[in-house]
């Protein structure tokens, strides 16, 4: 007994170091979607809590597995050895190993409950950016009801400001997840779920749907772009042009951010590519599901596909599937199902190569 507890103590001293080793091993490479490098306050609170549990778990792991291994080596016997002493139990020992885990659990439970209450419900207060998140099979829609912006698969947020998400789905359950900013929150049809976080740094971050939602669940990624307030304001001003919310009168045309929308619209109307593209966008039936600058909108509230008004400025195409390049857009428009099998994006009619080229140029011109 004496010898073994010495070993146990030695192992226990090594535990935090071992645990750190484990984490370092895990983050040795750069994982853009890691939970272990929080970049937002919500994720940081979770991470602190997680580290507490990892330390406890590692200590217990090392101790218990150590004792187990020790027992295996120390008490190996041969078939003809005499029968060992027949011990049936030890009440003191049993009480001890019931009570000690209970204390460890209390040590975990207290910060847990505190954090549960801190991370629940909506964020309120002045300066909070309100965003509505709507999950779709298999892409994400983001709406900024106060700013009049509707976008898809790319959420822009100002750094250092709390953003408050009010989340639902247009079809089945999904789960909104940007690991470096916050934990997951599932979205349900017909109800809203809250989530909030505050970015600590600027940059482009990966997010992904985390609740199985059908054939292309794996391909339901999105980017979260944290930027300075100025960059964010400029982005908002651009996005407001042709926004379905502005067009439908849900948000007044220019109250929060002034934009040269009138001048720009005039310039666009004169452009020949613009006219050809717009005709094709309507004629080919894209308009049935997508919103686009300068095209009439079937409905302001239910978009079947992402708002494409500024698709040229986005980082990726098809819910984070591929970089936003001309070639990729052409591939996608030529045959969506070959790029993302089972996608709900259907072409009302087969497009010719020339039509695809026009459409690609037209869409990419809208930044």
């Amino acid at each position: 007994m004496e010898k073994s507890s010495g070993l146990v103590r030695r192992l226990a001293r090594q535990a935090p170091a071992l645990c750190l080793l484990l984490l370092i091993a895990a983050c040795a490479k750069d994982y853009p979607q890691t939970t272990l490098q929080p970049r937002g306050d919500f994720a940081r609170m979770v991470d602190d809590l997680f580290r507490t549990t990892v330390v406890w778990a590692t200590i217990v792991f090392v101790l218990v597995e150590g004792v187990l291994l020790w027992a295996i080596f120390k008490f190996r016997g041969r078939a003809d050895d005499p029968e060992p002493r027949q011990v049936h139990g030890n009440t003191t020992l049993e009480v001890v190993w019931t009570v000690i885990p209970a204390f460890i659990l209390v040590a975990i439970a207290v910060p847990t409950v505190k954090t549960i209450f801190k991370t629940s419900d909506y964020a309120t207060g002045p300066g909070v950016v309100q965003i509505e998140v709507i999950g779709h099979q298999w892409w994400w829609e983001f709406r900024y009801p106060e700013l009049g912006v509707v976008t898809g698969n790319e959420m822009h947020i100002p750094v250092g400001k709390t953003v408050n998400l009010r989340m639902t789905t247009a079809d089945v359950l999904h789960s909104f997840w940007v690991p470096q900013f916050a934990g997951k929150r599932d979205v349900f049809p017909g109800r809203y779920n809250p989530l909030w976080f505050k970015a600590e740094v600027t940059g482009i971050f990966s997010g992904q749907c985390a609740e199985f939602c059908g054939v292309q669940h794996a391909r339901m990624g999105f980017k979260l772009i944290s930027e300075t307030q100025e960059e964010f304001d400029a982005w908002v001003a651009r996005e407001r042009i042709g926004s379905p919310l502005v067009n439908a009168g849900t948000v007044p045309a220019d109250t929060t951010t002034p934009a040269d929308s009138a001048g720009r619209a005039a310039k666009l109307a004169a452009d020949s590519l613009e006219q050809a593209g717009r005709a094709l966008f309507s004629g080919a039936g894209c308009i049935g599901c997508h919103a686009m600058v300068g095209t009439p909108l079937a409905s302001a509230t239910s978009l079947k596909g992402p708002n494409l008004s500024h698709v040229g400025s986005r980082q990726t195409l098809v819910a984070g599937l591929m970089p936003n390049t001309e070639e990729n857009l052409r591939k996608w428009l030529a045959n969506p199902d070959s790029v993302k099998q089972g996608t709900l994006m259907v072409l009302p009619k087969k497009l010719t190569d020339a039509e695809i080229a026009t459409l690609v140029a037209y869409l990419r011109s809208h930044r």
Partner: protein
Amino acid sequence: MATSVVDHAPASHHEPHTGIWSWITTVDHKRIGILYGVTAFIFFLLGGIEALIMRIQLMKPDNTFVSPELFNSLFTMHGTTMIFLGVMPLSAMFFNYFIPLQIGARDVAFPRLNAFSYWVFLLGGLFINFSFLINAAPNAGWFGYANLTSNQYSPGLNTDFWVLGLQILGVASMAAAINFFVTIVNMRAPGMKMLRMPMFVWMSFITQILLLLAFPVITIALVFLMMDRHFATHFFLPEGGGDPILWQHLFWIFGHPEVYILILPSFGIVSEILPVFSRKPLFGYTAMVFSGAFIAFLGFGVWSHHMFSTGMGPFADAFFSLSTMLIAVPTGVKIFNWIGTMWGGSLQLKTPMLFAIGMVAQFIVGGLSGVMHSVPPADLQQTDTYFIVAHFHYVLFGGAIFGLTAGAYYWFPKMFGRMLDDKMGKLHFWMMFLGFNITFFPMHFLGLNGMPRRVYTYPGDLNFEFWNQVQTWGSLLLGVSFLVFIYNMWKASRRPADAPADPWRGATLEWLIPSPPQEFNFADVPPVHSATPAWDLRRAGGGTLPEPQRVSGAGIHMPRPSYWPAVTAVGVLVTIGSILFTHAFSQWYFITLTGAAILIYGIYRWAYEPAF
């Protein structure tokens, strides 16, 4: 109350024990146990092949080895198969074979009901796997979350096969659970009080209680889902005011106890093996019993810890978090008592012992990651990622499968009268141990680094490739280890049946009769004075036991073979399976009525047929 069970009854008709008909009509718990084992092992291998295909697909980013649809079917069927057609019926094999032997009974309480359970299980398993042949394998996950399972989002028969298949399997589980529960309550040998039952019997007993209380809930949830899909209701559909979250609650009220249904039998097996191979009684027997019961009891109060990310609110989160943490206490007690059993013993590191120790060592890992998930904010990062996949494979593979494999090596000589080769067994253990850990430990890293579950592929820029490749190689090693096991069993089958009655110096009643046991198990049941009756006798005999002789069964009355259980099982299959046809065929209910007629006819013939 008489201690002898040899009754002075007229000699019974012992049917010949050969031919396929003898297997179809058998009501002998030992033969039904073997049927369960063989069937479940085949399904288990099928589930393993499904897993290997998934592992190959995930070996590199943007892989196209299988289509997204097929991948979704594979992970759905892998989960469904391993749980309902693999681990549960493998446990049922041990329930069948060893509960009656360990409590000193001739058979289970209701031998024909036992046969019925098996046939329903077999038909249900075939039914649900038949879907692969018509390209309609279930593909909405083993958890079948609404509203993805609605007609709108899951058209086709895929989900119907799942719903109806689980319903059929539920009938089998319920019938078996009642049977084993009553057997343990009512068929124990004289002197075997509850607190003298072997630990395997105890854990099996608790498992039956969980089955009895959890399965009705999933039955109702599946009925609602069936109604939604076939009869236009809106139980889980928001269009009609229903709420998809109801499915999650009902599913997990069943689903969490189900986890303990899968693991408790293994706890029992390991608690049998560790004392025998440490040559020392189980440490803290009573604590082991009550911790098992406490785990089961708490198991009904934690279901929503599967749903922290749904946003239930801080009070529900806190409640389910604390109740989940509480489970760690009795689980810890079990692990410490197992180590306490080994401590100071004379460890015989034979194959069953290696698997049992492996189970303990790996279950610790699964238990600790389980505590991590009980912290709701942290769980928000971990749920639906590979971290969870790692966690429950440490519990269900590292725990349940290792325990069941330990049981297979431990009891194989008793079941077949032949020893499995110990060297090959050890090779199997080390391959399985390494393969398992290489496959599943890196999943912790992947999950924490943001790889979600249930994805058929992942983009290259997330850097998931390295560990995925490691895992795939590990899984292949794991797969090959089972070939070693199969080869070992095949080799054993070529040897003469010369295993002694008690190759391990066992503590419980089954080791007192010849291997394999005779049809009637015990000619005379020895009186039981402790939890280790065979050791008592061995001590009384100065350390040795005489090899038991095969005796004539004349005068012992055994139940008569019957094919009505199998017929009735067909009735269950047709009645429930008929719902598949509602959309295809307007007179579908004629099939239902045919099934019901077979079912009712079977029940009446069964009821009026002499049992002996």
